[in-house]
């Protein structure tokens, strides 16, 4: 078990945003978290990555407890993420965005950076080399010196994935990776996500609204509604689950 979230609850005042959700993820799998708007999917991601501390419940990652750790510590343990509303460092170059992602894997400190020791020079060079490899992986190596904000939308999504990969994660959380994409871009994104797992062995959890994406690439699907888990299973099971249909389309849809 790579990730084991146990009975995670997150409340904001009286609002229960995530209600007793448990989720386990096998290493090397691709799983989706779906649900209507406001179901608590992103909040659940924010709890997993340490941006919020869970009100109750535990999160185990790779056999160790990560509940209550800071986001940077969780990233250090091997969970990376992308954001629903793209959060690149807009005024940094494509290459620098990826280099920032490597922060936790580099060791240059204050004195090393000041005196530019041979070790720091070597580290910086190999970091650049690896950053270019990651950019090549997502197909952005030729745009390495462009500012992130000047990239087309689809490229920004890819860059976010490359930046997340730079943290050398075991698990990557993708928050609506195909939102706002046209069918062709969506197809490319699906391909990229598959390659993350198949070529690099990264486990993937994604939040997704596009059901074609969910049904195409997920091995398991978890459905949230009003903060609670209402269903879990293989895509085809979820597709025909009356509770899920009801959550998405309303009660009438099931009767009809």
């Amino acid at each position, binding site marked *: 078990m790579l990730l084991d979230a146990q009975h995670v609850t997150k409340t904001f005042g009286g609002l229960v945003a995530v209600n007793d959700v448990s989720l386990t993820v096998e290493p090397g799998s691709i799983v989706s978290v779906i649900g209507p708007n406001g179901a608590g999917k992103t*909040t659940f991601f924010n709890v997993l990555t340490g941006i919020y501390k869970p009100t109750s419940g535990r999160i185990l990652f790779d056999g160790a407890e990560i509940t209550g750790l800071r986001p940077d510590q969780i990233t250090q343990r091997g969970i990376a993420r992308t954001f629903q509303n793209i959060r690149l460092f807009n005024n940094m170059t494509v290459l620098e965005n990826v280099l920032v*992602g490597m922060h936790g894997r580099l060791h240059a400190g204050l004195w090393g950076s000041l005196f530019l020791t041979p070790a720091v020079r070597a580290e910086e060079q190999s970091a650049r080399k690896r950053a270019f490899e990651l950019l090549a992986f997502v197909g952005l190596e030729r745009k390495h010196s462009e*500012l992130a904000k000047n990239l087309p939308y689809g490229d920004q999504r890819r860059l976010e994935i490359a930046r997340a990969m730079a943290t050398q994660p075991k698990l990557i959380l993708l928050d609506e990776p195909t939102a706002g994409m046209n069918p062709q871009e969506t197809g490319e994104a699906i391909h990229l996500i598959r390659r993350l797992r198949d070529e690099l062995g990264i486990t993937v959890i994604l939040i997704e609204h596009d059901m074609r994406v969910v049904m195409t690439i997920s091995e398991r699907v978890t459905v949230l509604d009003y903060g609670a888990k209402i269903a879990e299973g293989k895509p085809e099971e979820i597709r025909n689950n009356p509770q899920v249909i009801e959550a998405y389309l309303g009660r009438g849809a099931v009767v009809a």
Partner: protein
Amino acid sequence: MRALSASPSPLSALNRGPLAYVLLTAYLLLTSVLLLTNTRTSLGTDILFILFLLGFLLIYRARVAGLYKLALGAIMLLAIVPYFGAQNAYYIELAIQAGIFVALALGLNVVVGFAGLLDLGYVAFFAVGAYLWGIFSTDQAGQFLPGFTPLPAESFYLFLALGLFVGAFFGALLGLPVLRLRGDYLAIVTLGLGEVIRVLAVNLDRPVNITNGSQGIKSVARPPLPEVMRTLLPGLNDPQLYQLLIYLMALLVVGLSVFVVYRLKNSRIGRAWEAIREDETAAIAMGIPLVRMKLLAFAVGASFAGAMGVLFAAKQQFINPPTFDLLRSIGILSMVILGGMGSIPGAILGGMLVTLLDLQILPRIATELGALKRQGVVIPDWFDPAQYQRALFGLLLIIMMIFRPEGILPDQRRSEEMHAGAPARPSGQPDQSN
């Protein structure tokens, strides 16, 4: 910088190939010779001095070999300015002041420009450095440390280095309570903390007399004159040599500051600061420890101020709390903004420019207007030019911010931010929020 070179001006034809070398050298030679032959304080000399300083900007912008730039800069800073300054104490004083504020601007630029943490209490660290040397180089320390005798003037050099670390320590200490704050809130709290330091300096004369309150500390020790300076420059008297020494020390601290900020800006640490400035949430999600990196920015920024404080106390030989008021912090911030936030050449230029405006250009304008008035030119009685110096400075700031918000020598990125025409997300892409 791109903002300027993007539009090919007729001047750019001059800044090419051997012609660039010839013109640059000729300009520097001409201004230097004129300056060295006109050493009496006057309007003409003031203008010459500014034209001479403009030479630094030309060196920076000229398309000539880096080594040549370095040599020219070194000759100007180490030969011409001191030689000219020895003839006229007013101008070396200007150069020292400019040096002090350049270092302060460079330090604040780390906090505000690099890491994006708006700090309105920066002068506090300058005060800490100044009081550090002020207290321990006089019998002030004896007031609260029984049996303490003033440290010998030789320990100035030790304290100059110590100032770096004490400044850094206070920087981190005052950074601690504001770590969770962003933007406006951060600015207000740092403003408050800066005032706290000043008020402590005013009031820490009781129950134990640490700072000697509002009377300040007198007879702060100067660094001892190295014998070698006397032998090398037999023509100069002691006050001139002291000023020269302080000037060289200021240059040393500025040089060190430039080196440090330049190295850090282009390092893993500089990238992390920049990421924090761009988007804290994304930065921490990428594994950047916010607390540590912010404290580091506060500490590095404050360290230059600490060292310059030590030098300032030694130069003035007298320190008192009003020197370190909020207006001073705002002045340093305006240097950073005027020069271009996040830009190292910008901070240097901003520091020099504001200091010159403050101490030379604006007073000179006031003097000249006053002289005209005495000659019978009609200037209404209610208009006292000396009183309107600050207004003129404010007006300049306003004009700058309207027409060149990114500063004079902007960091390229900052410039992009200011002129962000294109939204990060193309229009038509709904911002889907969950």
